[in-house]
């Protein structure tokens, strides 16, 4: 039973990651922390999490609100691009796009009276060697936590981070993956802590080489037969448009499950093939390369680098992952109140 803290920015796959983590028999979700990112401002991100947990009947999971802005970030227009990118597809999908990242209604659940950074620090320090920090959005909260409490690095068991790209082109710029790009300074702080880390790049989720791990209408059909729990209904209702956007815009065979893969790796690292532990750095000052993730592989003449503690996923057993996702998510039906 892995004890995890899940730090999210409430894009579509974050919602599935929260649902997956909250019902998985293989992990205890100690809490969810929120960070400004792909879904927009921090209140939207946080309300989506609260509403998701309410839908799941998991109101006992603590939710702590976190960073409202990145350390440096990028231009305002660029930062808002992920929130509104579907507008470029409006001619193709019309009103169906209203189901993409809709404004969250006022939640019935409440956040705890503690900043996400303090929740991460306090939980990890109170349970040394026990807590895996899973980050599926920009790494601002994690970076702030390491900056505020240097002892956090020794207290965490592991980190599993969604971010970066090595073979697959970036999804926000040609070289950069969104989570890293959205707060490159934070990612660099986090990757330099010397914590045992698994990095989940786009290569194993937003690439048709990982097609078997993507959510398709076949998978929705499978889930349709599984029952009518509100969580399962929501997935049937909300995710066809996500599948279509990622087919249309990114030329993928389905909706990539980045964040759920990242969560699953916290308890089953065998889902992915990984590199040896190596040092991973981030390009901060490049213009077109800002946010690029650099793995210290091979042999170079110049010395350099940092802690060799990050294993990068290079391949995924997509069919086994998707089977795991569906088996886990249908537990809502049997766990139904």
């Amino acid at each position: 039973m892995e004890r995890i803290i899940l730090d999210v920015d409430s894009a579509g796959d974050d919602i599935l990651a929260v649902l997956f983590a909250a019902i998985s028999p293989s992990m205890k979700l100690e809490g969810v922390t929120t960070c400004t990112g792909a879904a927009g401002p921090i209140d939207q991100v946080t309300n989506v999490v609260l509403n998701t947990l309410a839908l799941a009947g998991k109101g006992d999971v603590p939710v702590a609100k976190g960073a409202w802005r990145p350390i440096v970030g990028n231009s305002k227009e660029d930062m808002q691009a992920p929130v509104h990118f579907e507008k470029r597809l409006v001619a193709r999908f019309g009103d169906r796009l209203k189901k993409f990242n809709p404004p969250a209604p006022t939640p019935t659940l409440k956040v705890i009276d503690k900043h996400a950074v303090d929740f991460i620090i306090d939980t990890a320090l109170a349970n040394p060697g026990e807590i895996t920090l899973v980050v599926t959005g920009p790494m601002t909260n994690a970076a702030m936590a390491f900056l505020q409490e240097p002892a956090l690095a020794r207290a965490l068991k592991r980190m599993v981070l969604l971010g970066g790209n090595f073979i697959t082109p970036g999804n926000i710029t040609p070289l950069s993956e969104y989570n890293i790009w959205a707060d490159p300074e934070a990612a660099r702080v986090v990757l330099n802590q010397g914590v045992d880390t698994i990095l989940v790049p786009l290569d194993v989720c937003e690439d048709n080489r990982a097609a078997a791990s993507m959510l398709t209408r076949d998978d929705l059909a499978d889930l349709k037969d599984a029952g009518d729990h509100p969580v399962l209904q929501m997935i049937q209702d909300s995710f066809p448009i996500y599948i279509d956007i990622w087919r249309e815009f990114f030329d993928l065979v389905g909706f990539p499950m980045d964040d759920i893969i990242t969560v699953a790796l916290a308890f089953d690292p065998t889902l992915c093939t990984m590199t040896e532990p190596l040092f991973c750095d981030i390009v901060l000052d490049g213009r077109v390369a800002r946010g690029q993730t650099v793995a210290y592989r091979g042999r170079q003449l110049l010395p350099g680098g940092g802690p060799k503690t990050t294993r990068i996923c290079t391949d995924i057993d997509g069919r086994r992952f998707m089977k795991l996702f569906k088996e886990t998510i249908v537990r809502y039906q049997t766990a139904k109140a």
Partner: protein
Amino acid sequence: MTTTDLNSIRPTPILLDCDPGHDDAIALVMAHRSKAIDLLGVTVTCGNAEPEKTVSNTLRILEFIGAEDVPVAAGCVRPLARPLVLGTADGPSGLEGSPYLPQATKKVEPMHAVDFIAKTLREQEEPLRIVATGPLCNLGLFVLKYPELLSKIKDITWMGGVFWRKSEYITPTEFNAFCDPEALKIVLDSGVPITMVGLDVTMKVLVEEAQYREFEKIDTELGRVVLDWLKFYEKLHRNSMGVGGALHDPLALALIIDPTLVKTRPAHIGVDLTGTYTFGATVADYWNERGLPPNAQVCEEVDSDRFFDLLYSLLRD
């Protein structure tokens, strides 16, 4: 402007964020001794020395001057996005020249500086003034963590930055800005009014022979310690710039007591994060070419003599 009777007004409550440092130390002395200031707490950052030393120095100074009741909170141990580069003016301990200051028995608050700032702001009815005399690591992290409390900060008087003036000093960067430019950017973008007390004015409050003669007249234990600090502190200035010690941080603190010591000009200022030689350089848009509203009052001129008179009087009385 008429002379203000400093005894007739309510002392201004402030928080001081610092990295002692000799000139921070003198600012601490001034804050404690001025009747115009109510020092609610001191938060400490890395900068002039390693964080454990700046914290230790703060505690030693406060205990030595009888300010042991002022709470101290330790803060950031590194800049937000860069490795720590130490200042060089203050020697290895950050407070060379005063080996006889005893180790403090006083302890730090059981919380991080940013949480102490948040707690203090919540306890105050009125928005609070903050004086920052080091790299802005703590205030940057505070802005990231507590956006809801920004309206409770009345303003930040920050010692740092410089606008290059030909033939005066050939540096586009000042240490506090250079040490954590990302934190400075966060603070500049926060919407909190800032008074920038840069090298443009602080390099004009120099301790030269005339000033030494006045300091030497202050025949108290405190006066002698300050003199020892100044004698060590001037070395870097004397050797590299050929001038006496510049009282950067004390000038920032003094502006709480008497804002008429400087002339200021509003401007939108930014900080360079990526230049080869110029990261940490402050840039002022005086012509408003970017069309952004001013985020700072930039100090442009200073009355050095009146500043020193204020400092002497605080050390004497």
